[in-house]
């Protein structure tokens, strides 16, 4: 599979702030690539440099083996984190206007159906709900039948149902062979949608790979979660790695049976216990020492 987009040693220096610090990664054609990190990690700046809307202080972006230029603008679709649309313009007119800006054009009926906008075509942009608006912005990103789509925190602010609907849309786009570059701070979103991820913090990439591989690489254990007030004994007696956070203790163990026996032996109430595998949130916490949503 060839490389669709490649960041080469990107640096973005604002006065007093190094927002992007020598970031390099490559995105293979046809995958969904997730750039994860908390607010302020530098992921939006990185993506905007790759989109060509923010100049890098140094470094290069390559698109299919050449510096990104006119062809990239024609073939890329972009959904920004915050984009205002023109007032007094309908959904249908917005789509037509953006479609007219490209030589490469998608079948507009397909885009409308794909993003479920059929009933909204005559509606003023100002009168759209959050979910409808995100679907329109995604449709705007698809009007040029892009080979590569950037989605910058597309589900921030959406309710759980709208978020899940949006995930289905992204899966459909991905299934049609379009490369997707997604930035998010929702771990569940990244685990469901992304084939590969890169975790960023303080302007640097901390680790990169497929979610499954990264979790396998960093974790061999299972996590037991308990309300802290249910635990009666001394944490040090468990002989496992224990983390205490927000009223919950997390016990990392490679032998669940043994750990449960030890917990029962110190009269621990197990009714509210959870047993789970480590996830990307755990990975991020371990790598950076702070939560993704901090």
């Amino acid at each position, binding site marked *: 599979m060839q490389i669709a987009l490649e960041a080469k040693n990107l640096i973005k220096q604002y006065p007093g702030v190094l927002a992007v610090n020598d970031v390099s990664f490559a995105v293979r054609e046809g995958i969904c690539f997730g750039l994860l990190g908390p607010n302020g990690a530098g992921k939006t700046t990185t993506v905007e440099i790759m989109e060509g809307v923010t100049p890098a202080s140094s470094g290069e972006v390559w698109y299919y083996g050449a510096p990104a230029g006119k062809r990239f603008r024609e073939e890329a679709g972009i959904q920004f984190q915050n984009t205002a649309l023109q007032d007094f313009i309908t959904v249908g007119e917005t789509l037509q206007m953006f479609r*007219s800006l490209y030589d490469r054009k998608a079948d507009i009926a397909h885009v409308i159906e794909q993003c479920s906008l059929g009933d909204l075509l005559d509606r003023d942009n100002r009168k759209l709900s959050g979910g409808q608006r995100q679907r329109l912005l995604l449709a*705007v990103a698809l009007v040029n039948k892009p080979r590569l789509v950037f989605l910058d925190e597309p589900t921030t602010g959406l309710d759980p149902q709208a978020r899940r609907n949006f995930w289905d849309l992204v899966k459909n786009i991905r299934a049609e062979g379009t490369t997707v570059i997604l930035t998010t701070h929702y771990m569940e979103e990244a685990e469901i949608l992304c084939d590969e991820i890169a975790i960023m913090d303080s302007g640097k990439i901390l680790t990169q790979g497929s979610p499954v591989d990264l979790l396998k690489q960093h974790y061999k254990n299972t996590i037991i979660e308990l309300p802290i007030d249910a635990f009666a004994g001394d944490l040090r007696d468990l002989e496992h790695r224990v983390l205490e956070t927000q009223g919950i203790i997390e016990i990392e163990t490679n032998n669940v049976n043994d750990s449960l026996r030890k917990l029962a032996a110190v009269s621990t109430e197990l009714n509210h216990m959870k047993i789970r595998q480590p996830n990307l949130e755990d990975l991020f916490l371990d790598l950076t020492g702070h939560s993704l949503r901090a």
Partner: protein
Amino acid sequence: MLKRIYAIFRARNLEFFRDRGTLSWNIILPVALMFGLSFIFSSDRPEYTVGVLQQATSIDKSGHPFLASRYIDFVAVQDLEAGLHRVARHQLDLLVDFGAAPRYWVNPDSPKGYFVEFALLQADSAAGKQMTKSQVEGDAVRYVDWVLPGILGMNVMFSSLFGVGYVVVRYRKNGFLKRLRATPLRAIEFVIAQVSSRLLLILTITSFVYAGTRFFLHTRMDGSHLVLLTVLLAGSISMISLGLLVAARVTSEELAGGLLNMVTWPMMMLSGVWFSLEAATPWIQNLAAVFPLTHMLDAARAVMLDGAGFTEIMPQIGMLAGMSVVFLGLGAVTFRWHPR
């Protein structure tokens, strides 16, 4: 390229015409001003106005018995040509020169001139002097005729500067410009679309207001509509370009509003919208020459009131074209798609 320009042009037009509040305001303001002024100046002022040709700015009432006449407003006129022009336009009922060779000029078609001349000759006879009479030909120009180009020009100015400058800053602030930046649209295409869209809106609204005042107030038009259209186009393009220059980098609507006010208010006060600058001091006249509105109004009045053709208004059109090139060039060089 043309398709992209047309797409942005069309969307901007739809946005404007569907915004009923803004549209109404753009039409109601100049119409209301015209009718208000027409009402205020519908009845002639009770006093007569006589120009006194002299260099001093104050009138010495003891210089001649006529200067002591009641109900006559005496104004000092320094320039003979300007004074004669005002007599021809009935803006002065009489022009007198009490110098070494006393003389006066009157418009034979002016009823008020007839009576003021009568009063002058009586006072002169009482003083035992003999003044030479000269006649000046010309039709009356009502204030409403004189002020119409000013009001149309002022509307063009506000529409150009706020309609383009403010909108571009709003687009930049809310990220719409950034979204366009991510498409193949080029800055020059965006600028051309904005200029064309605003030009169409200005032409539509100005034509509507102009036709309304012509129909209801029978305003004067001595020249060609084609020449007037050229003046309107040249003036509008230069002021739209100025709006784009002001908005080239600004990211705050508050700052944009302040800057636009800073540009529009001096133009409104010093470009001759409400009153003539002929009697203004030279430094004010020089300052006014910096503003595109001054040249637009000079040319529009020359066409509408004096029937000037393309040749006569070339200096003003040249100035407006030059200003447009400078404003657009600076605007393009400094243009920023999104806030840093």
